[in-house]
């Protein structure tokens, strides 16, 4: 198991706010556990589908609150799926620098091809989110 040294914790910058858009409670729990285990996240919020995420993030944007720096987006969700969320979110006047990762259980080629269209093929993660993957993401982010 990876145990961060005291030094690395002190030096490490943290992600102030991260966001999970995910309808599966078990997967939210798993992801949150691993994110917490890295000790690199100050706050994690989660939404149950694309529509709920869009409405909340839009409200945050309008009230001048800072948006999440990192968003893990599931693809298959009720109401609005991941793709609709992406399309709609892109139209918002967002100036913050947000890093998106697709986090899916889908092994369908079709989904991966769609990710390419959104320029997210490099940020296409397979569930479950693991600690090593998280560390790699953090090293590019911080």
């Amino acid at each position, binding site marked *: 198991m990876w145990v961060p040294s005291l030094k690395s914790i002190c030096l490490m910058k943290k992600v102030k706010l991260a966001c999970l858009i995910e309808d599966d409670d078990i997967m939210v*729990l*798993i992801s949150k*556990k*691993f994110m917490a*285990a890295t000790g690199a996240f100050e706050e994690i919020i989660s939404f149950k589908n694309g529509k709920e995420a869009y409405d909340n993030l839009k409200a945050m944007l309008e009230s001048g609150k800072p948006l999440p720096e990192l968003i893990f987006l599931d693809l298959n969700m009720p109401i609005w799926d991941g793709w609709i969320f992406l399309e709609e979110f892109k139209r918002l006047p967002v100036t913050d620098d947000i890093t998106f990762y697709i986090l899916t*259980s*889908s*092994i369908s080629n079709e989904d991966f091809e769609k990710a390419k269209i959104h320029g997210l093929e490099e940020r296409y993660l397979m*569930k*479950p989110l693991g600690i090593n993957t998280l560390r790699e993401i953090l090293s590019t982010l911080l």
Partner: protein
Amino acid sequence: MNRKAAAKILVVDDQPGNLSLATSILKPFYEIFLANNGEKALLMASEKQPDLLLLDIMMPDISGFEVCRRLKQLENTAGIPIIFMTAKTSGEDYEKAFDMGGVDYITKPINSKELLSRVKTHLLINSQRTYLENLNQQIFEMNSNLEIEVQNRTRDLLTANKQLSSLVKIKEEQNNRLQNFTHIVSHNLRSHTANMQGLLAIMEMENSELFENQYLQMVGQASNNLNETILHLNQVLTSFNAELEQWECLDLNKAVNSTINSIAQLAKDAKVSIFNEVPDDFNIFCIPIYLESIILNILTNAIKYRSEERNSFSRISADQEDGYFVIVFEDNGLGIDMKRYRDKLFGMYKTFHTHKESNGLGLFITKNQIEAMGGKIEVESQVNVGTIFKVYLPYEKS
């Protein structure tokens, strides 16, 4: 006119003088038959089937008009053109001659030039009429044949069309079901295994000592196996959806080389020599990701199932045969017991070796991919001698 056979003319007159005069005029050009009364005339007309009849009107037994009437009633003589001959020049006879069905009328005494000219004219007219009738008959027959043919074809087309549209409908339904099923596998089933794997990973992170429990280790193994099975199933289902894939022209020699390069280390470790004997510029129109997967599958099989008792090799060559490109993979490996396994060779999850890496899916997917490209695969194998796989891909599309 065709001179091969002279036209036949029957001359009917009760006066021998008239008969001999007509004979002397016509004999040089035609075959002449003579009758000196009506009875004989009827018999001979029917028997000799003359092309023309010269018929005297005034005869003692049966008059020329009566002979004419009877001839016109019989099927085999009705078509013979009749020229009446008579000394009479009254208007009544002249009109009656035509009314009875005569084609012409000659008055006696006979003028040789007139006789020859009229005979010639009517023979010509008659032969042309016969020709036209035949032609007409032929056209009529062709026409009715054509109509029947058109009706048959139309009916066939309608039937075929009906079958086709019901097939298309079935195919569409199958495709939809297949896509639904593929979606269930690639999303729904997969998401549960992802959860299981995730939960196990948390347990391992938080309470790693729990994993000393053998049962929990087995749960972990089962979860990984389930995940792998779902990946395989997805791969198989995707190979059924060939319509979605991209067809391209592929240089086979280069494709084989790049596959050999990708498994070079594997082959080196197993001490299997692989020879690419595909000619240069051997281009195949295919679905490249399928063909590459087929080559990879068969070559890795050759490596996996090599014999430890000899220097192993695998040889790939290509040729053309009866409308197919044939790609031949030959090895000297363990071989397959064809008597026992022929029917099962390409089945899902069938393995014939107790090899640790055999997952029983390779040949099943290979066969599906080949068939999706309209091809077929054949195998010859002998236990402990080797195996030859022949992959046939149609080249009409190229």
